């Protein structure tokens, strides 16, 4: 049980939840969140947005029952966090772009803080969020609203691209990088139950066979993922 520090609405149906405590975790990893007792049944996987000495934060969008309950949390309410789960974005060096679509920008914050000197691309459909915070961490900063972020991304400029967002966007980037030196890492979202690799409901098909998104992922080499699912 941990204590909520704050839970702010930041636009686009998204909230920034800050929880008190010393938590572990690296860029790309996630926690299973539970701010209820029995209902709904399953906990919700949410990426680490940021982590500090005495707090952890999550950026989430309200889409259904679970995130609705999360959105009602107030300062001093309690929440259960299990994690950190999953692998991390790789700690590489070179010219790096972080590309987030919509809610997919969430894990890129900690990635930008960790990797440093990155370019950040953020695509939104209507409203923008946290521009100041992300801009501050970026060498070069690109934002599109109502237009595909992939339209302004030149993959060949980069050694590495780390991306999180809608599947079509990530697939597009992987396709654009085909045959180029650019390595693309994608963060995959799958429905989960256990979060620890024990139930196999989150399988992601890859060229080297089935992988568990919760344990072997959520970060995969883009080239490895079989997207037609």
């Amino acid at each position: 049980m941990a204590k909520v520090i704050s839970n702010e609405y930041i636009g686009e149906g998204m909230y920034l939840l800050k929880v008190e405590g010393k938590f572990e975790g690296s860029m790309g990893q996630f926690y299973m969140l539970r701010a209820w007792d029995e209902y709904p049944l399953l906990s919700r996987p949410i990426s680490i947005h940021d982590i500090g000495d005495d707090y952890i934060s999550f950026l989430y969008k309200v889409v259904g029952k679970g995130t609705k309950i999360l959105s009602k949390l107030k300062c001093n309410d309690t929440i259960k966090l299990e994690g950190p789960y999953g692998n991390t974005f790789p700690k590489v060096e070179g010219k790096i772009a972080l590309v987030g679509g919509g809610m997919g920008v969430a894990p890129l914050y900690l990635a930008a803080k960790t990797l440093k000197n990155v370019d950040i691309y953020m695509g939104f459909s209507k409203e923008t969020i946290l521009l100041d915070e992300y801009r501050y961490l970026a060498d070069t900063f690109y934002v599109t609203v109502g237009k595909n972020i992939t339209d302004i991304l030149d993959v060949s400029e980069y050694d590495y691209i780390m991306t999180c967002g809608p599947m079509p966007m990530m697939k597009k980037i992987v396709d654009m990088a085909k045959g180029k030196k650019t390595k693309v890492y994608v963060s995959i979202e799958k429905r989960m139950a256990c979060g620890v690799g024990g139930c196999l409901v989150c399988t992601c098909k890859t060229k080297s066979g089935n992988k568990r998104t919760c344990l072997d992922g959520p970060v995969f080499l883009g080239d490895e993922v079989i997207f037609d699912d």
Partner: protein
Amino acid sequence: MTNLSVKFGKLNFKNPVVMASGTFGFGKEYERIYDIQKLGGICTKGITLNKRDGNSGIRVWETSSGMLNSVGLENPGMDKFIKEYNDYLKSLDLVSIVNIGGSTIDEYIESVEIACKNDVDAIELNISCPNVKQGGIAFGIKTDIARQVVRKARDICNVPLIVKLSPNAENIVDMALMCEEEGADGVSLVNTFMAMAINIDKRKAIFDNIYAGLSGPCIKPIALRMVHQVCKNVSIPVMGMGGITNYKDALEFIMVGATCIQVGTANFINPRIGIDIINGIKDYMEKENIKSLDEIRGII
């Protein structure tokens, strides 16, 4: 002194709490969470003779107090399982039970043979699998068809054999009696209920396979009734499960006659649920001055 240990036929469990197949990986996955050797036992993910990639499409869906899964028995196949996990499982101080599935009788038998040759602690025969020769109807629906698998498996199985029953069986008591007649060391029940979910916007079933397996708290009242019926009718030991999420649920299954209980879906609510249930049972026994679970088993 409170003693949580139970005898399940020839098997000795340090406590009655066993993790259910398919919800606890091969144990290893939960090692980082707690010392799994505190558990009475674990059942492995269902293993088939050959590797299976499992089902396509969505594999999990939440329902009111339950979940549907359509994993489709994804597993590395018996040989690879033995190579990668058997030594690990045997090194654990708990009863590790290998859950075996199949789509033909021959497949089951070959898997059982390999498992026995490798001296596994026990086998849980999952007869809920679709029988390819019977047009995909599960082996565990009709007693006569299930009998063929159980008989052949028993013939060649030299480790304790537990048959895992499906709640979709036409007659679960007959099924359990059949297992007893054929010499099974015990039965476990229930597996998931065949069920479905729909996306009305897409006007399609949620699962590529249309039907999926329902588990979790929603099924507990039915599972408990089935375990009660079976316990009243057989004299071999029973592992009861279906929607157990706390020590009280566990005690209910013991009070209707279960020797061990299995915990599945609740691992997804709380990965430390096994320990919590063990501690809950212990505290209850101390408070109620119960020395052994024999005192309350089958009291209802």
